[in-house]
């Protein structure tokens, strides 16, 4: 399989990100992966290959807006663009993590593995997170009940989920 970016070399690096249920896949050669900042080890060895990461990556991720419109390229909250994030290695504000999630996720995975937060939670968000995990638990039970054709139990669970949504 050829690299999706240059179309010349064999793709040896494969990336997949899922954002809001939409999965995007990338197959790159080593050089383009490094240029996109995705292959840190290689990029460190051969810094000369480091090119315009955001341009390449955002093209491929479909993040680049049509010519003349760069709305997706800039964080609507703080105004930072991908070039600046790439250059400094820092996000501009909390919203950058939502807005540029598709681009940042591979980096975060590379640093921390396929992990989600399990530590402390700020006081203001504890109730919301509890509700969210309760909902996940109830939904799993609901699927189980439907699978077992226990429709009475399923109806109960559905009511519980609705109640939880109301509270939120």
């Amino acid at each position, binding site marked *: 399989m050829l690299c999706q970016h240059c179309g010349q070399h064999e793709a040896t690096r494969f990336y997949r990100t899922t954002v809001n249920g939409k999965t995007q896949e990338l197959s790159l050669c080593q050089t383009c992966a490094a240029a996109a900042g995705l292959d840190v080890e290689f990029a460190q060895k051969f810094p000369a290959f480091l090119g315009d990461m955001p341009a390449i990556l955002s093209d491929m991720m479909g993040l680049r807006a049509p010519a003349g419109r760069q709305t997706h390229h800039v964080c609507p909250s*703080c105004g930072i663009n991908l070039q600046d994030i790439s250059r*400094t290695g820092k996000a501009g504000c909390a919203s950058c993590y939502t807005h540029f999630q598709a681009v*940042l996720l591979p980096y975060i995975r590379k640093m921390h593995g396929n*992990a989600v937060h399990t530590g*402390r*939670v*700020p006081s203001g*968000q504890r109730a919301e997170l509890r509700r969210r995990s309760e909902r996940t638990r109830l939904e799993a039970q609901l699927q189980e009940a439907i699978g077992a054709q226990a429709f009475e139990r399923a109806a109960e669970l559905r009511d519980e989920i609705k109640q939880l949504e109301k509270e939120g």
Partner: protein
Amino acid sequence: MALDRQRDEPRRNTCDDIAVSTRIRLARNLADHPFPDRMSDEQAEEILEKVSGLFQPLDAGARFHTVRLTRENRLKARVLVENHLISPEFAGSDRPHGVILSEARGISVMVGEEDHIRIQTIGPGLCLEERMQEAQRVDEIIDGGLLYAFDGDFGYLTSCPTNLGTALRASVMLHLPALTESGAIREIVTAVGKMGLAVRGLYGEGSQVQGALYQVSNQTTLGLTESEIIDRVTAVVERIVEQERALRTRFKTQRPARFQDRVWRAWGLLSHARLLSGEDAMRLLSDLRWGVAEGELPPMPMTRLNDLLRDIQPGVLANAAGRALDAGARDAARAGAVRAALTAT
């Protein structure tokens, strides 16, 4: 005028011979402001005011006070760096920034570092769990008054993605002369790196190793709880301490005369020298600490040796002298500070 010394806390562990100090750092940002790099000076001022305001009513014993750092008080900032109360990058920042301090409790809250808020607690020896509890108490003070930037999956949102999740850095400064002497430290650095931890020099990231002092800290911040991180760092530190102790014993038994000569020579030079460069002082204090820890040299509290590591630094010396010191005057002041500490009863 010298800053208050940190409280000499009771001995709580058995690693004081090797573990010099412990530090906890929590990074926090406020939800409704851009991160410091993108902030205006007005926003930076506003955050400093808000955070500082939360600590004003709380005085009981902690004596919290805010130090605003400006171009005019760079010496003060340098002293705080040498006291490990603020980071070197923070000291040199150009935007409005300040630190809320309680020297009595080893607490510093940097406002306007790479993240809006960096809570830091330090203490002598190996005391990660206790310092973590203190940091969490400070965290709750801020959390009670301001809204943190947080995401259910990414945890505390930080300027740099390397700190996401718990945004916790737990680090312990270790004195490792035997591992350094034998060269085994290189293998330790590699092994520790593979376990998701890092080994750095005296003043953190990018700093040089001086006086056989190393900082061991966690790298991974996302996907582990705070307790898991603390447990992991503690386990690794204890393992390194064991290896250092084993090598010290070997060094002492296999080459007793060489060991004795080395530590007594340091004692002699430090007790009598009239001029000491920073580099010489760090090297000799390392040998002195080794000799005291092994019971070869006259007993001396480890806390005094820890204080000396700080008191011989350029900013602290100039601050104590009350004036700027040129290199010669500084070396004389350093030698004086060391002699005073060694002759104190």
